[in-house]
């Protein structure tokens, strides 16, 4: 046996494989495909204070080795999340991380207080300061590191739970933002959220998604994401969670070697709903065949 456990803040994950926000619903959608308890943890769709119907359609477009989305944080809202989605999440024997977003600093704090005051059982927060698909807040927050740091400080005060700040790549220096967030008390940073992108149908001259621009994800963004993880690993000491185009265990290993302690599987869930569980199994096999006793030995093991 190899030890797959990794630590993120006060959380011990049974393995480094998580599912990325917005690509795994509220967990239940995937329970008919595999045993979710195989995973290190799941990250919920972004929750907001009020329910959101999301952006107009078309919201998604296929691009070479990737996809664009402008879902616009469609979600049930925090109240329905607690009453309707939590009962299933409570039954899980894996880490549950709630991804949250707000339009203002105050909204983040109010949202966290609501969750803290509820009897919801979960293990941590991933703070979405980086969604490219909402008009207010969103990328704007994520690209202003003073505000991102302020949000982090306020949330840090409001909870004992693990706080992960999810970073956008759509900034001049992701390393600066990561460093500011670490200073402000974050337990971890996860990266990357989607890259802003666009596609046009040349027959109709219309953009392929109604919001014109959207977030690019999938294998197309992996090299960019990997470079960002490597860059951030030079700037912070808190654990990094790597995201971006991870389709198989080799991709997951690349992120870990570049500096990630754990990884999130996103778009790949759409193509193979059981892939995250397959990645766990294959990571384990890799460790065994390479005589790796603890998976954390792989972190930052790049020879460069």
């Amino acid at each position, binding site marked *: *046996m190899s030890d797959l456990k990794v630590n993120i803040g006060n959380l011990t994950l049974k393995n480094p494989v998580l599912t990325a926000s*917005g*690509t*795994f*619903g509220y967990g239940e*959608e*995937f329970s*008919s*495909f*595999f*045993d979710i308890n*195989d995973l290190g943890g799941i990250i919920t769709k972004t929750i907001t204070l009020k329910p959101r*119907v*999301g952006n107009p*359609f*078309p*919201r*998604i*477009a*296929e691009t*070479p*080795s*990737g*996809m664009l*989305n402008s*879902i616009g944080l*469609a979600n049930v809202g925090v109240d329905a999340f607690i009453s309707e989605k939590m009962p299933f999440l409570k039954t899980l024997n894996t880490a549950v991380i709630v991804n949250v977003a707000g339009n203002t600093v105050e909204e983040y704090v109010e949202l966290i207080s609501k969750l803290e005051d509820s009897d919801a059982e979960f293990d941590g927060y991933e703070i979405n300061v980086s969604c490219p698909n909402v008009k207010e807040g969103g990328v704007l927050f994520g690209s202003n590191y003073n505000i991102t740091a302020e949000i982090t400080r306020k949330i840090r005060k409001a909870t004992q739970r693990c706080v992960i700040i999810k970073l956008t790549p759509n900034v001049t220096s992701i390393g600066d933002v990561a460093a500011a967030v670490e200073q402000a008390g974050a337990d971890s940073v996860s990266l990357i959220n989607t890259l802003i992108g666009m596609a046009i149908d040349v027959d109709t001259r219309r953009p392929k998604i109604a919001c014109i621009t959207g977030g690019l994800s*999938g*294998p197309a963004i992996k090299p960019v994401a990997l470079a960002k993880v490597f860059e951030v690993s030079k700037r912070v000491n808190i654990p990094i969670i790597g995201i971006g185009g991870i*389709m198989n265990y080799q991709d997951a290993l690349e992120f870990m070697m570049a500096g990630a302690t754990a990884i999130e599987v996103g*778009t790949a*869930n*759409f*193509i*193979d*709903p*059981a892939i995250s*569980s*397959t990645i*766990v*199994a294959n990571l*384990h*096999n890799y460790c*065994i065949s390479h005589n790796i006793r603890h998976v954390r030995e792989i972190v930052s093991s790049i020879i460069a």
Partner: protein
Amino acid sequence: MSPITASLNSELIHNSEILEVRELTPRIFRMRFHNSFLARNSLPGQFINIKVNSEYNPLWRRPFSIHQINSGENWADILFKVIGKGTDELSRMNPGESLDFIGPLGNSFTIKPDSMKVAYMVAGGLGIAPMLILGHALLKLEIHPMLFYGVRTESEFCCLDDFESAGIKVHLATEDGSRGYKGFVTALIESTLRDMPSTTGIELFSCGPNPMLLPLGTIADRYNVPCQVSLETLMGCGVGACLGCGVKANQNELKYLYVCTQGPVFNSNEINLSE
């Protein structure tokens, strides 16, 4: 130490042997594959989501209605038209190769044998695909369906023999008048309903492009007949995760319904297809 394997507990993930790929009419193919689970458990209107190759081009799976099943011989069919990269790859697959798909997915047409006397199946173009499995299911419940089937021009008709040999009466429409009624299939259905002394006990089951389903819903309302429609949208995942497959719900407050999990079959007055 034995390597651990992922604990897949799904009856929905399949790799099935392809038995036949046949071009029925130009660019329209029928693919038959071995799968006893699908052959026994598929409901009319459900679909499967196929990965046409193991590469990232195309990235997404491609959804196709289940066209026909045979639980005695353990196979299922899809019927598809080549319109792009994914369907082109699919058409080039060969018997003996393996088909990677997820399914059956989605809801199904609702058949109420008690209140329903006559089923009119209305298909436009490739909307014919789910009508054969539906027709067979209706016949099993001793409801005699009739098929109204419209295409642009005669050469686009396919599977007519399959319906006729099952004893299903077929009414054809072509936009150019090359065969059957000249005009849209919706006009054909309307004139049929208009001529009926009473429409009680009639139900419409439909699949086709939105520009056909929209007027069909209006006609169904006018003649006071229930109408179920099977919709097509882009699908990023097929399992309710990407939220990319919405249609507007027919209500004042803005709300979307998701075709892959809440559909693909809806009552025509549940949804708003205008615009």
